[in-house]
C-alpha cells in the first residue's frame, strides 16, 4: 500500500534521514520505533508532504507522493494523527471532528463517522461543545484519533499516540488502535513505547539516528537482543 | 527565477547610478576662493531662460493644496501669456516636497544651487514654509511665499522672502472684529464656543482670536482643539451644545468644516451665529459635503470670486471671476483662496520681472528682489504691498502685505459678501433661524 524507497531528508543543510526504506501493506499495523530524535516524526512529515526528500520515492497505492502538495494527501486517503495532538485549541470538540472530514468521501459519511467516534470515545460526546484546548491529555489524544477516524482513511499515520498518557490510558489507546485496524484501516504507528507497540503491530522497523537498523515481525523483534537492551530495558 | 533576480539587481544598479548622476550631472560651480561667510551671488548668464523654481507639496497628505497652487500658477502664466522677457524665455522648474520640511529644504537648495533659478515661488504648509523661507534667505534667492500662514515666517527678518498675497494666521479674523462690535454684541452675543483644528494654522488662529474676545468681555465657554481627520465630531458638538454658547467660532481645515456644519445641524446646536475662519468654510467642498446645511454659516474670507477686483498686467486685463472660470474649465474643479494666492503669486512675480526689464536692468536675483520691495499691485487677493509693519498683537512683520479680509455668509447655498457693508452682495441674516425652523 505505502512504499518508501531510499529517501534522504534534510533540514536546510542538515541531513536527518539516510536511505530510509520500508513498506506498509493493506490491513497491517506497522510500527516505526526509535528513541527521541531518531527521525520518526521527520519520516511521517515527509510522507505527509510537509518535508521533501532530496533523494528517493514515496509511493501510495501506486501514486508518487514526493512531488504532491501536502494538502492532497488527505484526499488520497491518508490521515495524519500528529504528535503533541496538534488540535485546533479554540475550536470545539465537534468542530475539530468536523475538520477531520473535509474530503468529499468523508464528508458524505460525516454523521455516520461522528456516531462511530462517539461510540468509541463516549467522553467526546459529553465534551462536544467544549473548546479542544480545555481537554485533558487523554481526552485530547482521543480527539486526535477521533479526528483521524472522521477522515475515513485508508491509511492512518499515528505519531506517538501514547505519549504522556497514564498507563491505563495507554492500554486503552492501543486497544482502540487494534479496533480501528480490525475495522479495515491500515495503520502506520510511530512509537517510543516499544513494548506496547511491538505487541500490537504486525511488523515493525527500528530507526536509529536517521537510519533503519532493524526490521521484522513484532514477535521477532520482541526477542531481539539489541531491542531488548536498548528499548525494553531488559 | 535567476534571470528575474539578475534583472532586478541590474535595474537597481541603474536606478542607483541615475540617482547619483542626475542631480550631479550639472557640476557645481562654487566660487573658488570666496570667503564662506558671505558667498557672493553669482550673476546668471545674460542669455538662457529666466528660471522660476516652484517648490510645493504635490504628493503626500497635503498634496491637495499644493496641486491647486501649481495649477493656479499655470493658469496665471497662460492667462498673461508672457513667455519671454528681454529675449529670455520663462521656464518653470517644479519640485515636489511631499509636505516634508527637510525635503522642502532639499528642494530649495537644489533649485538655488543646481538649477540656479532667479526666483522661487512656493510653500503651502507652515512647516515647509519655515524651512523654505530660511533656506531661500541663506541662499539669497528671492522667494514668494504662497500659502504658509505661520506668523513667525515673516516676523524673522528675511530680506529675500516676500509674503504679499498670503495672510498671517492671526489676521484671518481681521474683518470679524468690526462685525462683532457693531452687530453681534448689540445682538446679544455674550458667550462664545471656540474650537479649532489642531495643526499650526488652527492653533495660531485661535491664539490670535482669544485676546479679541477677552478685550470685549465675551466669555469663552468652550475652547478646544480637535483632529481634523476625525469621522465624527458629534462628541465635541454635544459638549459645545451643553455649554450653551451664543456664537460658535470655528477654525476648520477643509472637509471637517462640512462635517461640522452637517453634524451641528443633526444635533441642532442652535446659536445666534456660526462663524468660520476662512479655511474650509469658504471652499467649494464645503457646499458639496454639507449640502443645504451650509445655509446661514458665516465665515471670514480673504478671497471670493464675487468682488469685482480687476487689473491689468502686461496689457492683459483680469478679474477674479475670470480666474475662477479658467480654473473650472481647465481642471474641472472650483478653485479656492489657496489657488487665488497662487494666481496672485505669479501676478506679483510677473509684475516684478517686467518692472526690472522696463528699467533696463538685467533680470537677476538682486534686481528681482529690489523690484519686489517696490511692489504695489492689484491682485486677486487685493492690493499688495511688501511692507514692514507692526500689528496690535506686537507682531513685527517684514515684507508682508495684508490682503483685505471680509465676511461671507452662505445664503440659499451661495456665498454672499455681507461685511464690510460697502462691499456687500447681500444683507446679513442675524440671528440665524433655528435648525428646526429652516
Amino acid at each position, binding site marked *: 500500500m505505502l512504499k518508501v524507497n531510499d529517501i534522504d531528508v534534510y533540514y536546510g543543510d542538515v541531513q536527518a534521514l539516510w536511505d530510509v526504506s520500508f513498506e506498509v501493506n493493506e490491513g497491517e499495523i506497522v510500527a516505526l520505533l526509535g528513541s527521541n530524535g531518531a527521525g520518526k516524526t521527520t519520516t511521517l512529515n515527509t510522507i505527509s508532504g510537509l518535508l521533501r526528500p532530496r533523494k528517493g520515492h514515496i509511493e501510495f497505492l501506486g501514486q508518487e507522493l514526493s512531488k504532491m502538495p501536502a494538502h492532497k494527501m488527505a484526499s488520497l486517503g491518508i490521515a495524519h494523527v500528529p504528535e503533541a495532538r496538534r*488540535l485546533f485549541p479554540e475550536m470545539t470538540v465537534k468542530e475539530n471532528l468536523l475538520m477531520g472530514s*473535509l474530503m468529499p468521501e468523508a464528508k458524505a459519511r460525516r454523521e455516520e463517522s461522528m456516531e462511530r467516534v462517539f461510540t468509541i470515545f463516549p467522553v467526546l460526546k459529553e465534551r462536544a461543545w467544549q473548546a479542544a484546548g480545555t481537554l485533558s491529555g487523554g481526552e485530547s489524544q482521543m480527539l486526535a484519533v477521533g479526528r483521524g477516524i472522521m477522515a475515513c482513511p485508508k491509511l492512518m499515520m499515528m505519531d506517538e499516540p501514547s505519549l504522556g498518557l497514564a498507563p491505563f490510558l495507554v492500554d486503552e489507546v492501543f486497544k482502540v488502535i487494534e479496533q480501528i485496524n480490525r475495522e479495515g484501516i491500515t495503520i502506520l504507528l510511530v512509537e517510543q513505547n516499544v513494548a506496547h507497540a511491538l505487541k500490537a503491530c504486525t511488523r515493525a522497523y527500528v530507526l536509529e539516528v536517521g537510519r533503519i537498523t532493524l526490521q521484522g515481525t513484532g514477535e521477532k523483534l520482541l526477542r531481539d537482543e539489541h531491542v531488548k537492551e536498548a528499548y525494553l530495558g531488559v | 527565477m535567476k534571470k528575474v533576480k539578475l534583472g532586478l539587481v541590474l535595474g537597481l544598479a541603474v536606478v542607483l547610478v541615475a540617482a547619483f548622476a542626475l542631480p550631479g550631472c550639472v557640476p557645481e560651480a562654487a566660487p573658488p576662493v570666496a570667503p564662506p561667510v558671505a558667498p557672493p551671488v553669482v550673476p546668471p548668464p545674460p542669455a538662457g531662460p529666466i528660471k522660476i523654481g516652484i517648490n510645493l507639496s504635490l504628493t503626500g497628505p497635503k498634496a491637495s493644496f499644493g496641486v491647486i497652487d501649481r495649477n493656479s500658477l499655470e493658469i496665471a502664466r497662460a492667462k498673461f501669456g508672457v513667455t519671454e522677457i528681454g529675449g529670455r524665455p520663462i521656464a518653470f522648474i517644479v519640485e515636489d516636497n511631499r509636505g516634508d520640511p527637510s525635503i522642502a529644504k532639499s528642494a530649495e537648495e537644489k533649485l538655488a544651487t543646481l538649477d540656479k533659478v532667479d526666483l522661487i515661488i512656493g510653500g503651502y504648509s507652515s512647516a515647509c514654509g519655515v524651512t523654505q523661507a530660511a533656506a531661500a534667505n541663506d541662499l539669497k534667492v528671492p522667494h514668494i511665499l504662497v500659502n504658509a500662514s505661520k506668523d513667525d515666517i515673516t516676523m524673522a527678518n528675511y530680506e529675500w522672502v516676500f509674503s504679499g498675497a498670503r495672510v498671517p494666521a492671526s489676521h484671518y479674523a481681521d474683518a470679524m472684529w468690526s462685525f462683532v462690535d457693531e452687530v453681534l454684541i448689540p445682538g446679544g452675543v455674550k458667550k462664545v464656543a471656540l474650537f479649532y483644528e489642531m495643526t499650526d494654522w488652527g492653533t495660531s488662529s485661535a491664539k490670535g482670536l482669544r485676546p479679541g474676545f477677552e478685550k470685549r468681555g465675551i466669555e469663552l465657554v468652550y475652547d478646544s482643539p480637535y483632529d481634523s481627520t476625525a469621522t465624527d465630531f458629534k462628541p465635541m458638538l454635544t459638549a459645545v451644545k451643553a455649554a450653551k454658547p451664543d456664537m460658535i467660532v470655528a477654525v476648520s481645515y477643509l472637509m471637517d468644516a462640512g462635517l461640522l456644519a452637517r453634524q451641528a445641524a443633526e444635533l441642532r446646536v442652535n446659536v445666534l451665529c456660526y462663524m468660520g475662519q476662512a479655511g474650509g468654510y469658504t471652499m467649494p467642498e464645503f457646499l458639496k459635503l454639507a449640502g443645504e446645511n451650509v445655509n446661514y454659516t458665516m465665515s471670514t474670507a480673504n478671497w471670493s470670486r464675487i468682488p469685482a477686483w480687476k487689473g491689468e498686467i502686461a496689457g492683459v486685463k483680469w478679474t477674479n471671476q475670470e480666474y475662477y472660470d479658467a480654473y473650472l474649465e481647465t481642471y474641472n474643479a472650483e478653485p479656492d483662496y489657496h489657488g487665488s494666492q497662487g494666481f496672485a503669486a505669479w501676478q506679483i512675480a510677473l509684475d516684478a520681472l517686467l518692472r526690472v526689464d522696463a528699467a533696463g536692468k538685467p533680470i537677476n536675483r538682486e534686481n528681482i528682489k529690489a523690484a519686489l520691495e517696490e511692489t504695489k499691485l492689484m491682485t486677486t487677493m487685493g492690493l499688495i504691498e511688501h511692507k514692514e509693519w507692526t500689528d496690535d498683537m506686537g507682531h513685527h512683520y517684514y515684507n508682508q502685505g495684508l490682503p483685505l479680509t471680509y465676511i461671507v455668509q452662505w445664503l440659499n447655498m451661495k456665498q454672499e459678501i455681507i461685511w464690510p457693508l460697502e462691499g456687500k452682495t447681500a444683507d446679513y441674516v442675524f440671528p440665524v433661524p433655528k435648525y428646526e425652523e429652516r
Partner: protein
Amino acid sequence: MALFGQTFVTGILIGGIYAVIAVGMTLIMGVMKIINLAHGALMMVGMYVCLALFKSFGLHPYLGMIPAMIILFGIGWLLQKYSIERVFGVETILPESQVLLTLALGLGITEIIRLIFTSNYQCAYTPFSARCFYLGGMSISQPYLVGFIIAMAFVAALHILLTRTDLGRSVIATAQDRDAATYMGVDAKRITNFTFALGTALAAAGGAMLLPIFYTYPDVWHPYLAKCFIITILGGMGSTVGALSGGLLLGVAETFGATYWSPGYRDVVGLIIFVLVLLFLPGGLKKVIGR
C-alpha cells in the same frame, strides 16, 4: 443625561463601522500572523471604487458596496498571491520584513490612487447623508444607523461563515495550526489567499459605509489603520465577536474621551486602551468572552 446618552449612541454607531473594517484585519492577522499595514489603503481603494460608481452611474454607495467588495476581493487575492505570499514563510533575520512589505504596498497603492483620482478631497453627498431623527432629545443620524445595521449584518454573516461552513472552519483551523490544517487536507496557501481577499473585501465594505457620512482623499486611511490595530489587539486575533466588541468599545471610549476630556486627545484614549490591553489582557477580549 442627554449629553451622556448622545455620546453613548454616537459611540456605538461609529464603533459598528470600525468593527467591519477591523474584522477583516483581525482575520488576516489571525491566519497570517503578520500585521497587514496595507489594510487601510485597501479600504481607501474601496471608497474610491464606490465614489467612481457614484459619480459616473449615480449608484448609491450602499449599492456600490457590492461591486466594490468584489473588485477588492480580486485585488486582495492578487496582492497576496503575487507579492505577500512570496515573502511569507521565507526565513529572514527579521520576520518583520513582511510587515514592511505590506506598508510599502499600502503607500504605493495610495500613490496610484493619487495618479488616477488626484489628491482632491471628494465626497458622495446625497440628501440622505444629513438625514436624522430625534429620540428623547438625542439625534440619531440615519446614514450612521444604516451603516451600523449593515455592519452588524456583515459581522453576523461572517460569524456564520466561520463557524458553520467547512470553508470558514478551514480558515479558523489554518489560523490556529497551519500544519495540522494541512494534515486535514486544507490547502493552507489557498485559504490564506482567500482570507486576505475576504478581509480586503470587508475593508472595502467598511469604506463604502463611511463614504456617505465622510469624505475621501488618498491619505484618508491613516487613522483607520491605527483603529484597526487597536480593535484587533483589543478583541483578540482572528475573532469576529472580539472584533465586534472591540469596535464598539473603542467607538464608545473615543467618543467619551472626546466629549468629556478633549477632542484633541480623542485618539490617545484608544492608544492607552491598546497599551493597557497588551500589557494586562494579552489575547484580548476573546479571552474573556470565549471567542
